[in-house]
């Protein structure tokens, strides 16, 4: 990511993106969108509308069958393995199924993203404690993730995604298991990242999340972009 981002206002750009799963399920069709630095963008839609697939295409967890994804001015389909690894270290992803390591502590799960980025242990510890405090998980630092509730696990996944202060944070249903109070904490964290110049793209059903503060909302229907709300 480091050498992928010229100083332009646009962080992510998807151009006529398409993805077909075998045998012929068109998960995403001709989706074009752009997200600026410092923007929080919500993608809404029913289950199966293609929200998760779109996020996977953006972080190149899936390869598109049509169109392209440009991050920081670079077509991510044309970057090599080493550049992809660097890109992923600069993109924080909070997965819908969390993708946590249940036997490890909350600290180690969140720290993993920073260890991969070769951050010093002292900084890792400080950053993890800071993030967990923001998400009301400070007392769960040493607890194994397997002992946490679903809502707590979801916040751990979000903390891990935000650990490296990423230039782009992708969150798939980030508040699916959270009460109103916890959802507000997550939204506040997204706001902080955006204020610092990061871009947040969240796929969600949760109206209380995207109705607040007049963020831009893209609505997907059967894989196609159906409507846009809010000003860019």
């Amino acid at each position: 990511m480091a050498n992928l981002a010229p100083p332009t206002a646009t962080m992510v750009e998807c151009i006529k993106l398409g993805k077909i799963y075998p045998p012929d399920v068109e998960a995403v069709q001709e989706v074009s969108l752009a997200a600026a630095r410092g923007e929080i963008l919500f993608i809404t839609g029913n289950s199966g509308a293609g929200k998760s697939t779109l996020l996977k295409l953006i972080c190149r967890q899936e390869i598109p069958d049509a169109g392209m994804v440009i991050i920081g001015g670079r077509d991510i389909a044309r970057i090599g393995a080493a550049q992809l690894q660097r890109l992923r270290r600069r993109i924080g992803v909070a997965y819908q199924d969390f993708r946590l390591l249940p036997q490890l502590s909350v600290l180690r799960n969140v720290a993993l993203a920073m260890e991969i980025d070769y951050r010093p242990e002292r900084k890792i510890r400080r950053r993890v404690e800071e993030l967990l405090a923001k998400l009301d998980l400070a007392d769960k630092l040493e607890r194994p993730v397997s002992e946490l509730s679903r809502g707590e696990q979801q916040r751990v996944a979000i903390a891990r995604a935000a650990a490296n202060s990423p230039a782009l944070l992708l969150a798939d249903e980030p508040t699916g298991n959270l009460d109103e109070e916890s959802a507000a904490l997550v939204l506040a964290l997204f706001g902080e990242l955006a204020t610092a110049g990061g871009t947040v793209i969240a796929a969600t059903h949760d109206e209380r999340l995207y109705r607040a503060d007049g963020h831009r909302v893209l609505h997907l229907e059967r894989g196609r972009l159906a409507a846009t709300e809010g000003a860019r």
Partner: protein
Amino acid sequence: MNSRTGSSRAPKRKLAKNPARRMKKKDQVGFSSFLAGILRQTGRNLARTWTTQLMTLLTVMLSVLIFAFFLLIHLNTIAAGARLGEELRLTVYLAEEINPALQPRIEERIRQFGAIASVRFVSRQQSFERFASRLGEERDILDDLGPDVLPPAIEVIPQPGLLGLGDLEQLAAYLTTLPDAVRVQYGREWLQRFNNFNHLLRVVVLVSATLLTLNLIFVISHTIRLTVAARREELEIMRLLGADQSFIRTPFLAEGLIQGGLGSALGLGALMILFHWAASQFGGPGMLGLLTLEFLSWPLLLLIIGAGTFLCTASSLVVINKSLRI
């Protein structure tokens, strides 16, 4: 003052406004951070799979111990053979004594064979006196006999390098061609048995080295494969988070390196303890000075540790390349 303040702020502003430069700075990893990250990861991996690691370590240790044990016996046998070689002499029994005037020519002819340390002519009289001195107090049994009872001889001592049975046979055959030579004596059968024993030991060392090398490769590969399988989910998450090849592979390589280095060192340490015990029990002058046991030399010890470490690390590398295709 103002301009200085302005110039000191300018780069900061530039850095903050230029995300490309800011991120590039983030991507630069110092060696100490890299090393700390790898060591941390390796330590955690070892701690998490310590039972498997311990079993592997013991296997490596035993393999090196068995191989080094045979090597030690082999090398000590060779050393004993060399000591024996220093005492080795061929005696050419003659029908008639050689005229002293002819002795230099005979000696020159013997030395033409090459690798001859010394040549000594023994007259009937000298043979008789030597035999009498060996009999000690019982020499009176020779009173009725004269020096003519023993044949004159030539004693030929080959150089230590001439220890091969084939070489000695050639030398013996050559010596029988000397004028008045009746027969040549040099303990052929004993040497043959010693040679066969040495040959057998060499085969045992080679076979054990081959089998134990295969065993090491198999055990280390199996351990790394098990560890990779046990951590499949974790590795997948690491890939999604952007872990580079070094972060994922190096801890596995380090495991192989530690297993090989530590296992070899422990195996040799165990052999050293065993050796000192055996040396105190069986060594010493009681065995005609032949069993002066010596432990493996430091360069050889380092070579074995290096080879063990290399084997284990290389095995890890091959398995990692197969199992962790990113």
